[in-house]
C-alpha cells in the first residue's frame, strides 16, 4: 500500500503513524487460540431452548392457533403468545422518538411476511422444542400480498402494515418521501442537449454472518437478567429490550462485543426481547439462537432498492440536471429502513456539482422480509445506480467516463443540493490516481485539474427553486404524481435540518459505539434555507472528533482529511 501524501500535503498535520502499518487486532490471540468467547460459548446449566413457529404465508389473517399437541410434547415448558407481550408493537428507533412502533414480537392476528414469528415454544432441549414447533397448527386466511415497491404505492394495493396505515413511511409529519429540491430541474431538462434515463435495481442481500443471531439469558437472584448476546449495538439492544418489555434498563446486564460477523445484521434486536421475556415468565435461563435457515430467511437483509435517474446532459459533458426517484423496500416492518431512506437522500446526487437536483426517496412497505442495516444501506445502492448512470451518460455523449467524472466533480466552495458548501473535496484527485494506477489515459487538462480550483463563485449560489412537493399516488387518488402549488414558505421540502448520525449499526463505519441519531426536527419548526456557511472557512477544519455520518457520507458531510 502506498499513501499519496503529496496530495494536499500542505493541509496535513498528521504523520500517519498507523495508517499503512501492520497492526495486530487486540482480540486476535483469542481468535487463533480458540479462546475468544462468543455469546454461545458461555456454559449455562439448565437452559430452556426457545424456538419460534413461523408463518408459512406472505400475508394472511390468523384464524386460529392450535398448540395443544405441542403442549403435550415431552420437555415443553411453556408457549409464548402475543398475549404475553408487555408491549404489543415496537420499532427500534422509537427509543429516539423517531418512527412508529409497527412490529409485534409475535404475530398480532395477522402475518405480514413469510417467516414471521407467531408463537414461541420453550422446551428442555432444542430437539423437543423443534418437535413441538412442528406440531403447532396455524389456520390462515390468506390475503393478497404485494412484493414490489411500485406496486405497493399504487392505489388499491393491499395494505401491508396497519400500524403505519399506508404502504409508505411519511417523513417529518407531512412528507410522503424524503425530498430534495435544488434549482429548476424541469426547465434544465427541457434545455439540455439530451436526457439520459436509467433504471437500477438492487437485490436484497443477506449478511450471512457465520455466527447466527442469538442470545442466552440468565436470571440473576437480584431480579436482573444477564444477557449474553451477539448484538452489534450492546446498549442500543439493551435499551430496546427494556423498552419492549417495559422494564427499567438497569434490570438488564448485556454482555457481548465479540460478534461472529455482523455487517449490520445484528442490530435489529430481534432475539433478546423474546428470550428475556421467556426467562422472566419461567424463571429459567433461556437460549434463543437462529438456525442457519432462519438466519437466511428471516434475519433482515439489505433491502431491495429501485432507483430511477434522469439526467439533463450537455454535449460538452456537463450534467445540468439530475432527477432521482429512489424506492427502498422496507419489507413488512420499518426496522432501520426509515433511516436508510434518509441516508440515500443525503447521499444523492453523488459527489458531483449539478445545478438542478430533484430527489424523492421513498421508504415503501411490502410483504417481503423486513430489511434493515447492511454496510452503507441506502448509500451503497445509490452509488451503484449513480456510478452506473455516469457510465451510461459517458456512453451516450461519447465521452471518456473518467473525464466525465472529473468534469462534473464537486469542488471546494461548491454549493451542494443539501445547502452545504463543499469543503475538502478530493474526487478529482481520486480519479486521477485511479486512472494512473489503471494505466487509463487522461487528457492533459484532466491530469492537471484540482478539487481546489473551479469551484465557488456562481457555483456557490443556491438557485431559485420552485417547490413542488411529491405526494403518493394513493394519497391523491389520481394515480399520477401530484404537485402542490408553490407553498410560499420557500424552504426545501423534506430537507433534514440537521445531519443525522447513524444509529449504532456497526458496519465498519467510523462512528463510536455510543453514537446515536440526533432527534428529528419537531414538526412546525422552521427549516432554514441558508447554508451552514456562506464563505469557505479560511483555515482547513480540524478533523471532527466523532464526525457526523459514516465514511460513506463523505460526499455530503465528509472531508478529505481525517
Amino acid at each position, binding site marked *: 500500500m502506498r499513501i499519496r501524501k503529496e496530495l494536499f500535503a500542505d493541509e496535513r498535520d498528521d504523520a500517519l503513524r498507523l495508517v499503512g502499518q*501492520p497492526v*495486530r*487486532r487486540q*482480540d*486476535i*490471540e*483469542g*481468535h*487463533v*487460540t*480458540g*479462546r*475468544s*468467547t*462468543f455469546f*454461545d*460459548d458461555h*456454559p449455562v446449566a439448565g437452559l430452556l431452548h426457545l424456538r419460534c413457529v413461523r408463518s408459512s404465508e406472505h400475508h394472511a389473517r390468523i384464524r386460529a392457533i392450535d398448540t395443544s399437541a405441542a403442549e403435550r410434547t415431552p420437555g415443553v415448558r411453556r408457549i409464548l403468545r402475543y398475549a404475553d407481550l408487555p408491549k404489543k408493537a415496537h420499532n427500534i428507533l422509537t427509543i429516539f422518538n423517531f418512527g412508529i412502533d409497527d412490529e409485534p414480537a409475535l404475530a398480532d392476528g395477522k402475518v405480514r411476511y413469510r417467516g414471521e414469528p407467531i408463537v414461541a415454544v420453550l422446551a428442555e432441549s432444542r430437539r423437543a422444542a423443534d418437535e413441538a414447533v412442528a406440531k403447532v397448527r396455524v389456520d390462515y386466511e390468506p390475503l393478497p400480498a404485494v412484493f414490489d415497491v411500485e406496486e405497493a404505492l399504487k392505489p388499491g394495493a393491499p395494505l401491508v402494515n396497519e400500524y403505519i396505515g399506508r404502504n409508505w413511511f411519511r417523513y417529518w409529519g407531512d412528507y410522503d418521501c424524503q425530498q430534495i429540491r435544488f434549482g429548476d430541474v424541469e426547465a434544465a431538462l427541457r434545455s439540455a442537449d439530451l436526457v439520459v434515463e436509467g433504471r437500477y435495481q438492487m437485490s436484497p442481500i443477506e*449478511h*450471512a*454472518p*457465520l*455466527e*447466527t443471531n442469538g442470545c442466552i439469558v440468565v436470571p440473576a437472584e437480584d431480579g436482573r437478567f444477564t444477557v449474553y448476546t451477539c448484538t452489534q449495538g450492546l446498549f442500543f439492544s439493551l435499551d430496546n429490550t427494556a423498552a419492549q418489555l417495559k422494564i427499567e434498563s438497569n434490570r438488564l446486564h448485556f454482555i457481548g462485543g*465479540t*460478534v*461472529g*460477523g*455482523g*455487517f449490520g445484521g445484528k442490530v435489529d434486536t430481534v432475539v433478546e426481547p423474546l428470550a428475556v421475556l421467556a426467562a422472566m415468565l419461567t424463571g429459567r435461563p433461556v437460549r434463543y439462537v437462529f*438456525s*442457519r435457515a432462519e438466519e437466511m430467511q428471516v434475519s433482515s437483509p439489505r433491502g431491495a432498492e429501485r432507483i430511477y435517474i434522469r439526467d439533463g446532459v450537455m454535449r460538452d459533458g456537463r450534467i445540468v440536471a439530475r432527477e432521482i426517484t429512489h424506492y427502498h423496500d422496507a419489507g413488512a416492518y420499518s426496522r432501520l429502513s426509515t433511516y436508510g431512506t434518509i441516508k440515500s437522500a443525503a447521499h444523492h446526487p453523488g459527489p458531483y456539482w449539478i445545478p438542478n437536483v430533484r430527489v424523492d426517496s421513498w421508504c415503501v412497505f411490502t410483504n417481503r422480509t423486513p430489511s434493515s442495516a447492511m454496510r452503507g444501506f441506502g448509500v451503497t445502492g445509490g452509488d451503484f445506480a449513480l456510478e452506473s448512470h455516469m457510465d451510461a451518460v459517458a456512453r451516450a455523449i461519447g465521452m471518456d467516463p473518467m473525464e466525465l467524472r472529473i468534469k462534473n466533480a464537486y469542488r471546494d466552495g461548491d454549493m451542494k443540493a443539501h445547502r452545504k458548501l463543499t469543503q475538502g473535496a478530493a474526487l478529482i484527485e481520486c480519479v486521477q490516481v485511479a486512472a494512473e494506477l489503471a494505466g487509463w489515459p487522461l487528457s492533459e487538462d484532466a491530469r492537471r485539474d484540482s478539487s481546489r480550483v473551479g469551484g465557488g463563485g456562481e457555483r456557490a449560489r443556491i438557485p431559485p427553486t420552485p417547490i413542488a412537493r411529491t405526494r403518493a399516488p394513493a394519497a391523491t387518488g389520481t394515480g399520477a404524481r401530484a404537485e402542490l402549488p408553490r407553498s410560499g414558505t420557500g424552504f426545501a421540502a423534506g430537507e433534514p435540518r440537521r445531519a443525522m448520525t447513524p444509529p449504532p449499526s456497526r458496519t465498519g463505519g467510523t462512528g463510536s459505539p455510543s453514537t446515536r441519531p440526533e432527534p428529528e426536527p419537531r414538526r412546525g419548526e422552521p427549516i432554514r434555507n441558508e447554508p451552514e456557511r456562506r464563505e469557505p472557512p479560511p483555515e482547513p477544519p480540524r478533523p471532527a472528533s466523532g464526525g457526523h455520518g459514516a465514511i460513506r457520507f463523505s460526499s455530503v458531510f465528509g472531508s478529505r482529511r481525517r
Partner: protein
Amino acid sequence: MTKAVRLELNGSPVAAVAEGGENLLALLRERLGDTSPKAGCLQGTCGACTVLLDGEPVLACLTLAELADGRRVTTVRGLQDGPRLHPLQEAFMDGFAAQCGFCTPGMLIAAKALLDREPNPTREQVIEAIAGNVCRCTGYTPIVEAILDAARRLAGRRG
C-alpha cells in the same frame, strides 16, 4: 439411549456420556467444555466446526459423537505447544488473517491438516484445503497468504 465416549482430546484422555444421535460438536462444546469448534450452520456447509479425528479433518456437526470413541480429537486449543503458539497461529496473527474470529478455529484446523500432509503446499493446494471453510469478514487472500507463510515458518523451524 446414551453411550459413554472415551477419547483423547488435545493429548488428554477425557470421557463423557453422549445422547443417542448427538454429534461430536455438541459433545465437545457442551459436555467437554471445548467451545473452540463453532456451530455456524449445523449442516456441514460452513466448516467452522472442523476438528481433526485421528489427524484427519472432519466436520464435527456431521460426525456422531460415539464415532470418536477410542480416537484422538484435535481442536485449535491443541495446536499450541505450551505457551508457544503454532506457526499457523503466529502467521494468522501477523498477517491479519482473522477478523471476527468465528471461522478461525475451523480454518486453522483445515490448514493444520494440510501442512501435516504437505509441508510445502502450493497456493492451489492451500485454496483446495480451505475450500470447505467459509469466511465472511476477513477475505480469503490474507488467510491463504498466512497459511503459505506458516509453511515457510515451519520449514524454518525444521532448519
